[in-house]
């Protein structure tokens, strides 16, 4: 099992100092060696695939005899959820930098596409 602290940090949009790289490397070696005990549990390819569908509540719905399709919201609930909109001001109230005009505020960011 190879694990590159630098590569993972890149994927996670993190940049580490040299000290952090060193300490994380040691710590991860220990943690990964610990979680490797899961290799002892056999799992077939079908079982692995089935995990894509696993949801913690499925067993509860089954046990309580409830149909998961009840999660589809009724009209009242839809109205409640639809009422939860934010105004332009509210949505941008925590923005580090804004542009545009009041009522039409925009998030200001560095350019993504170079000229």
């Amino acid at each position, binding site marked *: 099992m190879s694990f590159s602290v630098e590569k993972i940090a890149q994927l996670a949009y993190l940049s580490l100092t040299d000290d952090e790289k060193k300490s994380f490397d040691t710590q991860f070696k220990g943690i990964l060696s610990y*979680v490797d005990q899961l290799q002892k549990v056999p799992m077939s390819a079908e079982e692995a695939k089935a995990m894509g569908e696993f949801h913690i509540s499925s067993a509860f719905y089954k046990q309580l005899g*409830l149909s998961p399709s009840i999660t589809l919201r009724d009209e009242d609930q839809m109205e409640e959820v639809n009422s939860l909109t934010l105004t332009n001001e509210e949505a941008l109230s925590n923005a580090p930098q804004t542009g545009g005009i009041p009522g039409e505020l925009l998030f200001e960011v560095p350019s*993504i596409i170079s000229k």
Partner: protein
Amino acid sequence: MGRLSQLRDDLKNKKIRLTEVYDDLIVKIKTRNPQVNAYLEVFEEEMRARTKILETEASEAAPLAGLPIGIKDMISMKNHVVSASSKILEGYRAPRSATVTEKLKKAGAIFTGRLNCDEFAMGSSNENTSFGAVKNPVDLARTAGGSSGGSAAAVAAELCVGSLGTDTGGSIRLPAAFCGIVGMKPTYGRVSRSGVIAFASSLDQVGPFADDALDCAEILQVIAGRDARDSTTMPVPVENYVAAAKNGSLKGLKIGLPKEYFISEGVSPEIVKQTQAAIEVFKKEGATIKEVSIPHTEYGIAVYYLVATAEAASNLSRYDGIRYGKRAKDFASMKDLIIKTRSEGFGAEVKRRIMLGTFSLSSGYYDAYYSKAQYVRSKIQNEFLNALKEVDVLFAPVTTSTAFKIGEKVNDPLAMYLSDIFTVSINLAGVPAIAFPIGHDSKGLPIGGQFIGGPFQEAKLLAATAGFEKAHPITKAKLACQ
């Protein structure tokens, strides 16, 4: 009687005036909080304003009218700062309240302030915070536990009569055990997570801290229920938790003891002793004991630190300095902005977990780590559900030790993770559990035990806890803070 119920009675019977209560409380907070560091922010003005309003508009219908409740810094209150105890969200103001705080407010509760916690709820000792560790009110050199350390310490130090925390891998139950109070993690899907900062979306649950089962029941009664804003909440009726706690008894209760939780290796002998003593109390009170088994318990921590971290890596990808939170000052490009913001804004433990989660989901490792972990998780859930079919509740210890010294485990993340050995599997299964005091060690530090129940069996858990409290009242530990 717990202080929540006592205060409510006293207010109702006009034995005390609301403004007096808050005058005293604010003084107490000012005196004790510098010692325990439970509150990040105290809502002094707001408390005074609300008591003025409630004193004239006495609404007897509101079940928590006038009661001081603290809120963990992961749970939104409209227009208040909520920061997950993280620099990356410093100053962030919630545009909307969480469903749970809306419900508490409607029930008349007065919010006392924002409570310290581990950053993004990641930790077992409340030391992973840029705002200073929370000290255990019983021994200020020791941790209050985490991640909801502030929520537990505030109740234990009498700086509110109840509080809300969140529990993803034990973050309510462990601090409750360390601080000598009651803390409950409801069933996954019992309480809405809308407006609660997400750590691991299939594990997080909001729950109450209070002096005893009845006080906890009062809070749970208000916050539980299906919520249209959180489709993971389930359409299960809310039972009468208050009645369950009031009438609670151990007599005739079938209690299962999962043998994998009754080990002595790595567990303090005093905890082993107190859990055995609690079991004797159950028997004496007419409960029957049965040994059960959760065979995949040994993999719980490994599963948790792959699944929870994977979900965290996904949930924390939104912190990029674009729409909210801190933004780095110097950056060469958009990508650089994001990387610098995250690297400067997140603490070490958060970075560790994001990276662990990213690894577990990465190409080439996904099957061996994440899928395998989910698979073992499904096994753990099945084992809990099967064990609980034979009994009313399970009983187990909560922690492997009493509150450890601040700084003792900070440099050994794996040792810190292993503190959660008795709590994480419950979150993985999604079932409810309640931690309650069962005794003290020779230093006077609190020891907790936990009842674990089947899905949506919170009433049974509260009844069992109340039954134990009646049969075997535990003297509250003497506080170290003045």
